[in-house]
């Protein structure tokens, strides 16, 4: 059951971030980004679907990927707080993706080395490359905005101030994740720290940004303790599904 929960945490991270990015569709700063952001969202949603499916199979109660996504409330969602943060502006959105992908890339690479779960290995092989591209795309934007105009630099610094406090949670393993790590299904999250700092350090150096000290990191997502925004996200996402119990779409 612990492995089921640990995979669910990962699936929720991907769905919630994919959903947030998809909110941009049709409203991006330039047409090229209206194409780029859905690519990122589709990568994330695709990974979430495979993971939900795997989690449901491990649970063995006959739930579908959609039951997982659409019938759990905000206290049952297990995503980290970073991914549910609102889009705010393009600076926040790109930085959020950079922070997440810079964690997930080494995580999936490590997974490929050690996992005993074939489905998870399949996901890792695909997602590792996707995350490498997300790092590049989001990273190049962070550099341009950080070292762009006065306004863009200010917005980028605001984004760092707003989001950096949520990055610590990426490296924390919940009790379920700790068990999945012990069972050889997932790698130890804390081990990704060096690789993550390396990527963020390189991007920030070019973007003229500084990583702030975080005396009070924000965590709680893995216990279902979220910000207020997630409830709205889920209310919107689940509205049709929940209004027609048992219907097929």
């Amino acid at each position, binding site marked *: 059951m612990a492995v089921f929960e640990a995979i669910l945490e990962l699936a929720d991270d991907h769905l919630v971030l994919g959903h947030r990015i998809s909110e941009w*569709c049709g*409203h991006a700063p330039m*047409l090229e980004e209206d*194409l780029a952001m859905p690519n990122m969202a589709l990568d994330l*949603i695709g990974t979430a679907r495979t993971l939900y499916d795997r989690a449901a199979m491990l649970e063995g109660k006959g739930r579908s990927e*959609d039951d997982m996504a659409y019938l759990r409330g905000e206290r049952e969602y297990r995503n980290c707080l970073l991914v549910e943060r609102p889009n705010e502006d393009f600076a926040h959105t790109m930085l959020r993706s950079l922070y997440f992908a810079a964690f997930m890339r080494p995580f999936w690479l490590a997974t490929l080395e050690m996992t005993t779960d074939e489905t998870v290995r399949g996901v890792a092989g695909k997602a590792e490359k996707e995350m490498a591209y997300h790092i590049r795309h989001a990273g190049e934007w962070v550099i341009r905005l950080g*070292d762009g105009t006065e306004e*863009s630099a200010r917005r980028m610094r605001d984004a760092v101030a707003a989001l950096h406090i949520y990055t610590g949670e990426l490296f924390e393993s919940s009790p379920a994740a700790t068990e999945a790590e012990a069972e050889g299904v997932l790698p130890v999250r804390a081990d990704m720290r060096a690789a993550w700092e390396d990527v963020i350090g390189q991007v920030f150096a070019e973007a003229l940004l500084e990583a702030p000290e975080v005396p009070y990191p924000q965590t709680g997502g893995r216990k279902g303790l979220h910000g207020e925004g997630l409830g709205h996200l889920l209310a919107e996402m689940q509205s049709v599904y929940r209004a027609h119990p048992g*219907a097929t779409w």
Partner: protein
Amino acid sequence: MYSQGLIGADGSTTETPEFLDTFQKRIDAEQKIEPTDAMPEGYRRTLVRQIGQHAHSEIVGMLPEGNWITRAPSLRRKAALLAKVQDEGGHGLYLYSAAETLGVSREQMTEELHSGKAKYSSIFNYPTLTWADIGIIGWLVDGAAIMNQIPLCRCSFGPYARAMIRVCKEESFHQRQGYEIVMTLAQGTPEQKAMAQDALNRWWWPSIMMFGPHDADSQHSDQSMAWKIKRFTNDELRQKFIDATVPQAEYLDLTIPDPDLKWNEAKQGYDHGPIDWDEFWRVVKGHGPMARDRIKDRKAAWDNGAWVREAALTHAEKRRARKMAAE
């Protein structure tokens, strides 16, 4: 997803009869015209306007469907809809590129869309009220688009024809995506079926209107046909669309909201009831229910993105300067 028959084309031109004659011979010989070739001013103007309207329609068309991405009732539907709306953006991009070969910039076209000077398809000025609208739009609006766009792959202007070939190839999944949604609803719970019928009732007439005014009332259509910018008339395309769609509705046991719709054995096609042209012109002229919201949304995206585009350009300038200093 296509714009309707061109709104307000002006094919008038002032070249010598000899020049026009030579040009027409090239067209008649099915030679493609490329951007740097000599062409009548009216031909260029008609194309800029038509490709622009088409591009704007794709871009504005992202909004009504985008309205449901966050509420799509399954992850499979969510991914498909996101990919479809992304495609519409891509099609707008290809089309802007085609227009840019004629010397009009994307910024300029965007400006004209926001100021209301440029038109876009009237269909996108209607609201998407339920999930069923997403199915119906894919089925009807993309279905109408296919009717319109396939002949455009043979348009005489090379860049437009090439863009349309790419668009048609990509769009092949759009109508199927929509029809599958409607089929699932029609075969679902009574509430779902009612939702599908309601959406069909609201979108049928606007879809029929997408093909533009009747041939008899369609100005400048003859010139576009002669120049092979257009290959079929509005009424021909509308007829093809209705004939293809009626059996698809019957298969789903849904009723097309036109009491006068009936098979005409003599013409081997369906006759349809009168179209409300007052509504059509009202919506084309910017008084559709969602007209203000659509432009407001597009303008907000553009204006809110200004600092991003500016930062990218400023950064590019810095990079160039640094590179030069290093050399």
